[in-house]
């Protein structure tokens, strides 16, 4: 009798574990399918939000040209290969920026005159989203009411207002950003841009009607998925999107250093007004 009962227990246990193994496998398959949609759950800040603090940088050639492009020579002959343009697969979803026809012409003019016109060359503030993929690091300093993005290039500052959402009092280079959390994602809605910054060194541009919505979603301990939707009815026929990973600086003592480039461009900007020696 005892042995029969024992056998029954064994059989039941085997069946149960078999069933649960099968269930586990199904769940694992579902999880695999969902893993791209199922967000990595980032560690939390003490106030309970996904922790985006850190020093971040992109690894692509978007700052040269956000559309797909081959390698090419430097616009400055004397820089040779050092100033040459590396190839890029592009970060624009769908491939091409959906310019209005007149605007595409203007982009081409910008490109032809980029040495004179690119605001980056003059150490002007980079605007958004160029500041993200400009190729220099930036630090996210995340507090409850404000999230600050501090960029090494020209010490550019972005203030993301998390508590009170307000309208831009005036136009600026870096825009006016209101932020909110959607689950694991920081959503940043920015308006109030002037029309003076570019998206890259290839003359891709916008008007003062620019509206950018960014999404920062942690995808692992040391990467963030960054997406930006661009809307500007004066320049583009429809909104369009770009996305790329942000990589964390993991070296000990990583920090943002000074890149006060004003000093580096003064002769370029004002050299023609220099007093000439008396004849």
């Amino acid at each position, binding site marked *: 009798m005892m042995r029969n009962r024992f056998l029954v227990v064994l059989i039941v246990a085997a069946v149960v574990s078999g069933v649960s193994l099968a269930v586990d496998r199904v769940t694992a398959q579902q999880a695999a399918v969902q893993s791209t949609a199922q967000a990595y759950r980032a560690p939390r800040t003490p106030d309970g939000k996904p922790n985006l603090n850190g020093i971040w940088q992109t690894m692509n050639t978007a700052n040269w040209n956000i559309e797909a492009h081959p390698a090419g020579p430097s616009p400055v002959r004397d820089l040779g290969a050092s100033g040459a343009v590396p190839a890029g697969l592009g970060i624009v979803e769908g491939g091409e920026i959906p310019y209005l026809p007149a605007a595409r012409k203007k982009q081409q003019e910008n490109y032809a005159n980029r040495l004179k016109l690119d605001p980056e060359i003059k150490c002007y*503030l980079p605007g958004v989203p160029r500041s993200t993929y400009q190729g220099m690091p930036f630090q996210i300093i995340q*507090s409850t009411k404000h999230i600050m993005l501090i960029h090494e290039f020209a010490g*550019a*500052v972005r203030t993301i207002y998390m508590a009170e959402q307000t309208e831009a009092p005036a136009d600026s280079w870096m825009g006016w950003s209101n932020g909110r959390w959607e689950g694991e994602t920081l959503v940043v809605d920015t308006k109030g841009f002037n029309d*003076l910054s570019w998206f890259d060194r290839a003359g891709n541009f916008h008007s003062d009607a620019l509206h950018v919505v960014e999404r920062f979603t942690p995808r692992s301990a040391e990467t963030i998925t960054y997406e930006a939707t661009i809307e500007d009815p004066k320049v583009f026929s429809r909104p369009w999107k770009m996305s790329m990973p942000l990589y964390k600086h993991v070296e000990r003592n990583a920090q943002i250093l000074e890149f006060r480039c004003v000093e580096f461009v003064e002769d370029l900007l004002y050299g023609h007004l220099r007093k000439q020696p008396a004849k």
Partner: protein
Amino acid sequence: MRHRSRSFMRGGAVALALALAATISIAGQTQSGAQSAAPAKAPVAKAAPASAAAGKTYKAPRTPDGQPDLQGFWTNSTYVPLQRPNGVTKEIYTPEEAEAAIKAAAAREAEQTEPGTTADVHYDFTQFGLDRSQSTFARNMRTSLIVDPPDGKIPPVNAAGQKRQQERAAARKAAGGQYDNVENMPIGSRCIIMGGAGPPMMNAGYNANYQIVQAPGYVMILTEMIHDVRIIPLDGRAQQPSGVKQWVGLSRGRWEGETLVVETTNFNGKNAFQGSSENLKVTERFTRTADDSISYRFTVEDPQTWDRPWTAEAPLAKTDGPIFEFACHETNYGIANILAGARADEKKAAEQKKGSN
């Protein structure tokens, strides 16, 4: 074009149909435990008295990660000079003396300039709310910001410091006139950095505002003028090798109880505070003393300039945000205008000379 003396305004004298939401509060705030409460006839500026006495009983709220909370918008706008004026021997004014000093300084600021004078070639600060009396300023009863040495003066410059001053003066002279080229112009006009950005942080005269944001392991201080930012790590990392020098130096911070202690070295010497060298070391101490004030104390050391360190105290008063983007370089028409003006003057002078020959 004589402009009438401006009388103190109350709230905002709104010129346009659309109402301005004036956020200036009128009477000075009183603070419990402070050395003195603002008398009833206080000037119209919002003033937040800072007092060490109040600091002893006050415990700052905490950030979510447990740091004493210094966050918010702060100003170090003040009428108190760095050094004690000649003829003043006391360290602290009586409340009446302090009020009188503020009133007189505010009145002087509000005085309108005489048309046809050089001083008149300027926009009117009061029209844009930029004079100190129309925004928050940090009330301070001291006769000088310097608290050590006890005479309230910067210590004498030593031999090495004097030599450097002479060398710098000679270099300036050799460089030519101030408007010969952009490099000869003040670094603030060039939009590189404001002279008082520091560290140590000195009153800018107007827009003397800062925003402090804290995250685990970091304190960030944004200076309004030319959007200067210092990001201060709190992880106890070592100072960087001397090969990296910066306009604002490299800062390292740590909490000592309620006080944030920030040590900064690695200055590049191009924005030399009070004539100091690249070996300058600045130690700042931030302590929240009340809901609306932070005690800010800094010690300056440079054996290449002074034979002893010296210390000053310049309280920070809570103020309103936001700090709007300071895109100084991007719209720096002034440099081009000034240089073009100087070249135009020279051309005119040369032509007149030719004409008289």
